[in-house]
């Protein structure tokens, strides 16, 4: 459910277009201010540049809401949305991405691409240390990749094109690809490829390593304490590798299970930041009008969350394509958008969000049409077999949506039983394929090779993991198209391939696509520079400061 893994595909593509073939992409260049190269260098930490008109102030504590409580904070092993949001402060990736999805340096200070687009060389930043004081080196990168290949479904897919990874010295990492892979530069942000400390994990059982409960990263904030059900406390990393940052002393991620209480907590000043999705949609207009309150929709460019219903293709009535199509016709998605999401978002047309590269809406359309749904069910010989529906335990909005979809499906004659569950229980049921219909939303990471294909290719059917092909859809043609699309050149060829894939998928309905979601972030105006990248709140609060 709620996924969260993310990758940065789009990023890669754009970067490639720009930085094509062996050009050193360092920040000064990006800033394009020839007369002020020096300033450019100073700003190399970058993102904060436009806001520097006002000098950041140091100190202060930010209280932010985290909803729901994450199941764990070890980002390399848990990728739920809330985990990414908290752990983005603790861990770091090699790169981060601007709102336009261009790559920016984080643990890698520069990178280059070879002429044949098959070798990527990253120069790591020197003087970076883990929270326990040990230095961060290329060996950690190598180890992280090994771990992620086993624990992180999306990272495994992302790295499938990598032939070998070498570390000629302590601060250089060279990736050699089997073949050119367009989105490659988009897979290095913290949620997609968090760097984990080799010295604490090598040779241990990763799943039971005690540091999973008190994670050690290189990020701007260090894990301090987690009072289950109450708050997660992070404190400033005094030895952070970007001098002067972070500006804040502490971050409290407040866990407030009740939606109304979260709104009240903001109104009474207990929290200053409501990340996207943490209050109910009908409260957004009211809270936005409060004094000293700023609202932004930015910071989701990288993710483009898309909500859908997993349909278990393996068993029962849902194994029949016509039943799955009937579900698409039966669910009133405009109602969901207008009523449940307060008009935010967009009805999805297929597996890609409209912000994703190579998106096409030239596919089979599924308007709200109960009569057609009934006819399809009849044709498929559906006789009222019981179908289990697993809503997403992410709060009122999702509960109400679950009830609405259940009613829609019952209206066309399906027998639906809602299974009540919490987040962890729901995760487990989906990962173990123990469901018929289940709500989810997943991030798309800008490029179909990174965020779309992973949910439909048959090589990603693996029990026990959540954000892969859990619906069990298997179609050799789709496998082939996504395999070709990832490595095809030029873009026009990729476009052709992905458009074909979208048409086939929308016809087959392996999952029932619902909405492209929008999550506004609500915060007090005194909180500055909270969202500076396309990764938004999930990118850590290293640039954020409080104007007291």
């Amino acid at each position, binding site marked *: 459910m709620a996924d969260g893994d993310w990758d940065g595909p789009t990023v890669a593509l754009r970067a490639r277009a720009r930085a094509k073939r062996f050009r050193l992409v360092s920040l000064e260049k990006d800033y394009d201010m020839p007369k002020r190269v020096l300033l450019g260098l100073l700003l190399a930490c970058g993102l904060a540049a436009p806001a520097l008109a006002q000098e950041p102030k140091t100190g202060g504590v930010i209280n932010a809401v985290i909803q729901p409580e994450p199941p764990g904070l070890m980002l390399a092993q848990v990728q739920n949305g809330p985990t990414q949001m908290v752990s983005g402060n603790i861990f770091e990736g090699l790169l981060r991405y601007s709102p336009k999805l261009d790559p920016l340096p984080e643990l890698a200070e520069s990178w280059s691409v070879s002429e044949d687009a098959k070798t990527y060389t990253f120069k790591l930043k020197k003087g970076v240390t883990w929270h326990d004081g040990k230095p961060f080196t290329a060996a950690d990168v190598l180890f992280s990749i090994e771990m992620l290949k086993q624990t992180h479904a999306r990272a495994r897919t992302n790295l499938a094109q990598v032939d070998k990874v070498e570390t000629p010295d302590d601060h250089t990492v060279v990736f050699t690809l089997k073949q050119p892979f367009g989105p490659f530069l988009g897979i290095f942000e913290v949620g997609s490829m968090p760097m984990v400390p080799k010295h604490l994990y090598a040779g241990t059982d990763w799943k039971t390593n005690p540091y999973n409960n008190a994670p050690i990263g290189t990020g701007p904030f260090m894990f301090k304490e987690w009072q289950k059900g109450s708050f997660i406390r992070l404190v400033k990393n005094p030895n952070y590798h970007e001098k002067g940052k972070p500006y804040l002393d502490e971050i409290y991620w407040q866990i407030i299970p009740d939606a109304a209480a979260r709104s009240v907590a903001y109104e009474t000043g207990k929290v200053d930041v409501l990340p996207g999705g943490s209050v109910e949609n009908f409260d957004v207009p009211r809270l936005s009008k409060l004094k000293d309150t700023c609202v932004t929709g930015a910071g989701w460019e990288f993710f483009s969350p898309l909500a859908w219903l997993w349909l278990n293709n393996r068993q029962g009535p849902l194994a029949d394509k016509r039943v799955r199509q009937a579900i698409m016709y039966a669910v009133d998605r405009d109602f969901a958008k207008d009523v449940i999401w307060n008009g935010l978002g967009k009805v999805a047309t297929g597996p890609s969000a409209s912000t994703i590269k190579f998106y096409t809406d030239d596919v089979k359309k599924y308007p709200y049409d109960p009569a057609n749904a009934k006819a399809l069910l009849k044709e498929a010989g559906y006789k009222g077999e019981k179908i289990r529906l697993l809503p997403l335990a992410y709060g009122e909005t999702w509960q109400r949506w679950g009830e609405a979809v259940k*009613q829609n499906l019952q209206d066309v004659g399906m027998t639906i039983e*809602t299974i009540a569950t919490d987040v962890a229980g729901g995760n487990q049921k989906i990962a173990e394929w123990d469901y018929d219909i289940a709500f989810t939303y997943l991030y798309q990471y800008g490029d179909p090779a990174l965020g779309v294909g992973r949910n439909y290719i048959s090589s990603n059917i693996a029990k026990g993991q959540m954000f892969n092909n859990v619906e069990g859809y298997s179609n050799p043609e789709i496998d082939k198209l996504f395999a070709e699309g990832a490595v095809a050149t030029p873009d026009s060829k990729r476009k052709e391939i992905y458009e074909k894939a979208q048409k086939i998928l929308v016809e087959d309905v392996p999952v029932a696509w619902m909405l492209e979601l929008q999550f506004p972030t609500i915060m007090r105006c005194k909180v500055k520079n909270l969202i500076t990248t396309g990764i938004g709140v999930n990118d850590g609060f290293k640039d954020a400061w409080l104007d007291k």
Partner: protein
Amino acid sequence: MKQFWKSMLKSPSGVIGLVILLVAISVAVFGPMLFPNSPWRMVQRPFLPPFTLSTVPLGTDALGRDIFAGMIFGARVSLLVGLVSTLAALIVGVPVGAMAGYFGGKVDDALMRFTEFFQTIPSFALAIVLVAILQPSIYSIVASIAVVSWPPVARLVRGEVLSLRTREYVQAAVVTGQSNSWIILREILPNALSPVIVLASLMVATAILLESSLSFLGLGDPNLISWGYMVGAGRTVIRQAWWITVFPGIAILISVLGLNLIGEGLNDALNPRLSREGR
């Protein structure tokens, strides 16, 4: 029996309670026949205030579902849970109490320690834990309410049996060689019944409240609408739409009040001496 109804109808609270209960039961039984539409169906625009449209007299909730229909279907769930879980609690509590009181000694000790074990845990907390472990469904809710509400029954029955067992007619039954179970069932329990009936009527009220509280916390059966669920679901929008929570809340209030009044009426009717002395 005639005597009982006479005194029951003489007590004003008993009459009011009976009327309320009869109305509630008939709504629960016949309501869904008169309003066959599912209460989950989205029938009108969301957040429609009450008394604006005659088709949805009490307005609609956040999804445009008919509040009136929800209350009618909710009556069924609330009353059913109240009655069934009370029945289950009696089935456990009465035998435990009767055996403890009748046999005394070690049996009494063992059974009462067991009962106290349940009494020391706050009942609502225990109910939440049980429902959460068993997964919320109508069965787990009934079971957990029964589990937390049988100990008072056992204690009450034990006390009654303890005092009755020394009466002469019981001793006479023992002397004539009747079996223990016969004595308990035929001689003692019928005479211990009146306080149990009073307690049971109050237990139904408590069970309705417990079910509502569980549903309010989101631990209700997701496939059944109940008053507690309606209050819980509407609570987050109480500032925009008071009617979503207020009407089901009133329904809970009135039915629990009705059952309490009945309990009082029963008490008057079954213990006429006690009530007369009390006045």
